């Protein structure tokens, strides 16, 4: 059955993300918040996260390459990104943010650039995987709602 196969695929995919340290236990909490009343929750939250992250990383890169680096703006940006990463369970990205914060504290511009590169790279990896995850979720949801429709059609037909 296509549904079971997809579910297994999704499960294995998420597990691989755990194994690579891309996700941590917080993601399990998020998965637990999805149910029949909120079948789209995971996809919604991931999408919000990705939009946010992309915006922040773009800003970080912009501020970092300015002549006079505004450290307070940078700090506020990375604080936000770290918070979002923590909330969604994006483990490696969260750690990368902590490294950037550390580099700020040390007022080490070279270190900051390096840490920012890592953040950008980590997000690229994570973003790609999240895209696949969302596609799997959507496919599963599509089959489920199809089945529901067919189910009610059968009921209607038999009465």
């Amino acid at each position, binding site marked *: 059955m296509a549904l079971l196969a997809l579910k297994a695929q999704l499960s294995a995919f998420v597990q691989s993300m755990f194994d690579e340290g891309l996700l941590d236990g*917080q993601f399990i909490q998020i998965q637990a918040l999805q149910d029949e009343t909120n079948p789209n929750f995971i996809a919604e939250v991931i999408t*919000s996260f990705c939009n*946010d992250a992309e915006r922040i990383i773009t800003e970080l890169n912009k501020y970092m390459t300015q002549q006079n680096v505004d450290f307070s703006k940078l700090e506020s940006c990375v604080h936000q990104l770290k918070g979002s990463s923590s909330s969604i369970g994006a483990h490696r990205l969260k750690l990368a943010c902590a490294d950037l914060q550390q580099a700020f504290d040390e007022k080490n511009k070279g270190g900051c650039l390096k840490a920012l590169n890592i953040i950008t790279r980590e997000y690229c990896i994570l973003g790609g995987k999240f895209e696949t995850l969302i596609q799997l979720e959507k496919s599963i949801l599509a089959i489920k709602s199809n089945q529901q429709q067919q189910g009610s059609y059968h009921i209607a037909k038999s009465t």
Partner: protein
Amino acid sequence: MSIAADSKFHVLAVDDSLIDRKLIERLLKISSFQVTTVDSGSKALEFLGLHEDDQSNPEKPSVSPNNHQEVEVNLIITDYCMPGMSGYDLLKKIKESSSLRNIPVVIMSSENVPSRITRCLQEGAEEFFLKPVQLSDLNRLKPHMMKTKVKTQNQESNEIQLVEKSEIQSQLQQQQPQSPLSPTPPQQQQPPNNNKRKAMEEGLSPDRTRPRYNDITTVV
């Protein structure tokens, strides 16, 4: 306005992060709370019916304990770090308002800073949650809301008695034009009500000032 208990408690959640708002809303709904989310402290105050320049006068009579509130809020949960008005600033404003100070406030933060936690608890926050907030954290909320609901119901019934009595008094006074009608309730009504309210507040304050480091391993 009704004293009849609503089947669900209503929580106002304040957080500038969209993801965190989605999460806390979902967590609260799963825990069977009614939820309203706002993205800033000033929007929260707006929702609560408190305006920036509103100095709530304790002498002002009111039919309902919530002067301007359209919707009853049983608990406020707010992020600490927000641009503009921080969660701490919001907490202070709420505790300074005579109409809002009885609403329990919970602070959330991604950072485990003991001095920050102490400051919030001393200012009157009921709990301090470390982010990301878990479903189990929310189980601690109901007792705080129950306390307030009972208190509010007592206040409401007291104040209705007050208004009824003062209406009768003013009707009587109208028949004998004497001193101008004052809106404040007759003197003999106030002491019992004030004592009761004071006693309830005193009963609560030991809890508020005692620092609680719930689930927080770092204790200074």
